């Protein structure tokens, strides 16, 4: 089974129509051409892939406990949710 990082990058690459090699840890959703709807769809794909519930309200993304500012922060958020769940 691939690492959390590889799986998240796979999901984000698919959403943005890029190759996984083009998605860096420092990329922001904006850099990758992911708009607000694409972001909501990515979060859904992440929830499905990891069987977790991600707290995210599109009206106040900056206030969300789940930091979506970069690929790195998204991965960190998922790791935390998985740790809390287990």
């Amino acid at each position, binding site marked *: 089974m691939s690492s959390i990082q590889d799986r998240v990058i796979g999901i984000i690459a698919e959403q943005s129509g890029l190759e996984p090699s083009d998605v860096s840890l420092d990329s922001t959703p904006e850099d990758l051409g992911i708009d607000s709807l694409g972001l909501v769809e990515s979060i*859904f794909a992440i929830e499905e892939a990891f069987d977790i519930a991600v707290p995210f*309200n*599109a*009206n106040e993304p900056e206030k969300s406990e789940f930091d979506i500012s970069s690929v790195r922060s998204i991965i960190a958020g998922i790791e935390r949710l998985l740790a809390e769940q287990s």
Partner: protein
Amino acid sequence: MKRVVITGAGTINALGHDVPATLESMREGRCGIGELEFRDVERLSIRIGAQVKGYDPEVRFNRQQLALYDRFTQFTLIAAREAIGQAGLEFKGELAARAGVILGNSGGGMTTLDENYRSVYEEGKNRVHPFVVPKLMNNAAASHLSMEFNLKGPTFTVSTACASSNHAMAQAFQMVHGGITPVMVTGGSESMLCFGGVKAWEGLRVMSRDACRPFSANRNGMVQGEGAAIFVFEELERAKARGADILAEVVGFAMTSDASDIVMPSKQGAARAIEGALRDARVNRDEVGYINAHGTGTAANDKTECAAVADVFGPHADQLMISSTKSMHAHLIGATGAVELLACIMALRDGIIAPTIGYEEPDPECALDVVPNQAREARVEVALSNAFAFGGLNAVLALRRFA
């Protein structure tokens, strides 16, 4: 062209089971939003909404009717009885042949759909009630309304998400204005507050978990409501000749499509609809005293709507009042424009502006007079009602005080 007036209004929604109760709630700034009550609500992360409470369908309808009437049809008929009763019209002969019904609705019989999917998928049943289809179809409410009141003219349902009612009422206006029929019954109805209905909305991540606070800097999303509002649109000379009580005049409308994004609103699309309605109604900008905003309480809608109003009205934008009554009755989706038209009628007829309640923090991107938290008295000559739907479909109505 014929002038068109409103001679009857009816409603049932979370603020009241008729027009007087609803207007009183709007004047008092009461909130109809509370904890949702229906099966499986514990599986939702969004558990608030503006449900019609204290309502017993069996008091209003008999068993045979209830077998055919989804909740959105029940709401329609209750509101229509009030509206047509107020208008004092009886449809027979020539009038019955020409008068029809145009309603806005988005979800159809969502509760019927939800219950029957549950029964075949979750409970594994292989038989459903014979009336599932006639009960859930989007035109069921319009059809039952036409049957109950003998309306035999143009009758159909318009479905444009959150703008459904405004599109429907604009179409009804046009039919009377153009002389096709002297009377139309119009408005909208919606009942999506069931497990599947709210679950679908939850997925979009735009719903608030605590309150609908339009224009407030700390707003965090929309809240769903349910109900109906129905109006009688009548040709002015006919209404005068029979001595009808005239609630307001409908003077124009406009519809536009953003042609850009399936969910994000567009300032240009909204502004073109507002400008178009003013042009159609031959109203000067500075005559507009009140706008009932679309004002959903989402981050995107409210700032876009305020920017559109500022663009269209220029300096007059700071003189007019704009409130979102969704803060009280929540978002009735396909029925929302109809319930919101009641606030426009109250502004024009009673000189009372319904407030935007739950307003806590000013947002520099919504720097208009949003009538925060308390109703206000003011004389208004012209009122607009905005509706900007998902899918980028906009419809704005213009009403004038009838004196």
